[in-house]
């Protein structure tokens, strides 16, 4: 399992305070996601591409990430023209294709790519730990922040435990097939992973209690917003406002 592929770098987006980036990413993605207008979606995509370029991220890795969401988009591009209906249609290979459906699928594709790129360029350029601290800095529920940090910290370990169990099953000649034995084996593996995760959670809680944890997470974080962070957040918030105006303008 690979995490934080984009978190290391020297661009100004990597150096920027996570709080400003979280706010900007939230605003921009909200405006882009709610856009019904192709102009707004395209402007959002252009902005997200500029941000990704500014973050100086490896394009091959970025495109590989986009491939995942565009797999779903391919389905939409295939299904919506056939199922959406509407007055305007085009006849292709004996099928009546809905132009409104096609338009909607293209709009969704552009918007989803733009949102993913906004998240990659603004959020993936910080470590999960920094994002957690940033969320705490924005006064988000401490429980949710802890949940994020602990999930990140222990997800890898839980995955390793699953792989260990899977390997152990493989070493005893287990070969997944479409049969009850396979389903039962996977159910047992999953059950065991849950049990082990539960036990680990109990041990981590004990370790925390023994070191004086009383429910309040005290942080060493004393991050100060720099002028550049304020400028970046203000600039991106202004961009979000401009996209909103573009969306509302007829």
């Amino acid at each position: 399992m690979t995490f934080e592929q984009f978190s290391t770098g020297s661009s100004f987006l990597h150096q920027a305070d996570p709080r400003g980036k979280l706010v900007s990413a939230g605003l921009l993605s909200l405006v882009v996601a709610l856009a019904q207008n192709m102009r707004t979606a395209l402007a959002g995509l252009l902005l997200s591409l500029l941000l990704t370029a500014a973050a100086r991220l490896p394009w091959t890795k970025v495109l590989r990430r986009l491939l995942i969401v565009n797999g779903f988009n391919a389905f939409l591009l295939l299904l919506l023209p056939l199922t959406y209906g509407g007055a305007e249609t085009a006849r292709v290979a004996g099928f009546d294709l809905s132009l409104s459906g096609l338009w909607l699928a293209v709009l969704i594709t552009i918007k989803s790519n733009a949102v993913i790129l906004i998240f990659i360029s603004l959020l993936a350029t910080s470590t999960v730990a920094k994002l957690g601290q940033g969320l705490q800095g924005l006064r988000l529920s401490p429980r949710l922040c802890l949940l994020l940090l602990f999930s990140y910290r222990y997800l890898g370990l839980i995955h390793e435990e699953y792989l260990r169990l899977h390997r152990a099953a493989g070493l005893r000649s287990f070969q997944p097939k479409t049969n009850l034995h396979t389903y039962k084996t996977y159910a047992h593996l999953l059950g065991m992973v849950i049990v082990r995760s539960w036990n680990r959670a109990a041990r981590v809680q004990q370790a925390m209690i023994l070191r004086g944890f009383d429910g309040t997470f005290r942080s060493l974080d004393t991050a100060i917003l720099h002028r550049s962070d304020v400028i970046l957040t203000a600039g991106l918030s202004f961009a979000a406002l401009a996209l909103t105006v573009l969306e509302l303008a007829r």
Partner: protein
Amino acid sequence: MTVDSTPPLVQLQQISFAYPGRRQILEQADVTLDYRQRIGLIGPNGSGKTTLLHLLMGLINPTGGKVLFKGREVSSKEDWRELRRSIGLVFQDADDQLFSPTVLEDVAFGPLNLGLSQEEALDKSRQTLDNLGLTRLTDRITHQLSGGEKKLVSLATVLSMQPEAMLLDEPTNNLDGTIRARLISILKGLKIGYMIISHDWDFLAETCDELYTLRDGKALRSGTECLHCHPHAHSGGGLPHEHPQQQ
């Protein structure tokens, strides 16, 4: 002749314990850990070694007997909190102990909980890492450390709270020779008492002065001079024993 009347740091008195639906694991066992005392704890798998440490720290409640901290019975939550301020436990699996994003934050976690200011906690943490020769790990991500580094950092997370004693659960598990030697040197340099669970008898012989052996639910006390490992032609070779001097 003067008699030292200071009560020992922590004592298990006539402690009994059984996990629900299972046989009695400890039966009226007596264990004492005094200031600056260095004790090894050995016994077969399933004999209750880890359970005993968890009882000492109040993570589980005994079915009989009592825990005394500085001569007073530990009963209320506040008593346990006080005991945990003075005694640290290093878990067997360092991944259970290290949950903060960076090493520095993890080491500062305890001092912050003890009420130290951010500056004081930072100072204390940096100083602890420095004392253990771990300064280079300060800003590392905890889950990206090697197994040996994790073990040393988990030791630092406990030492930064400046405990009066420490309990270590199989600290040499999965450690290579270099880290093991480093751990021995760190432990020998400490000015606090500790109790170590280990199956590594050479390690215990180097780091401890006394020994408890868990057997049939009881804790038997002896010195470490009888702790050795060599082939035996008799069935008692797995337990601490002495050989009569050959005349």
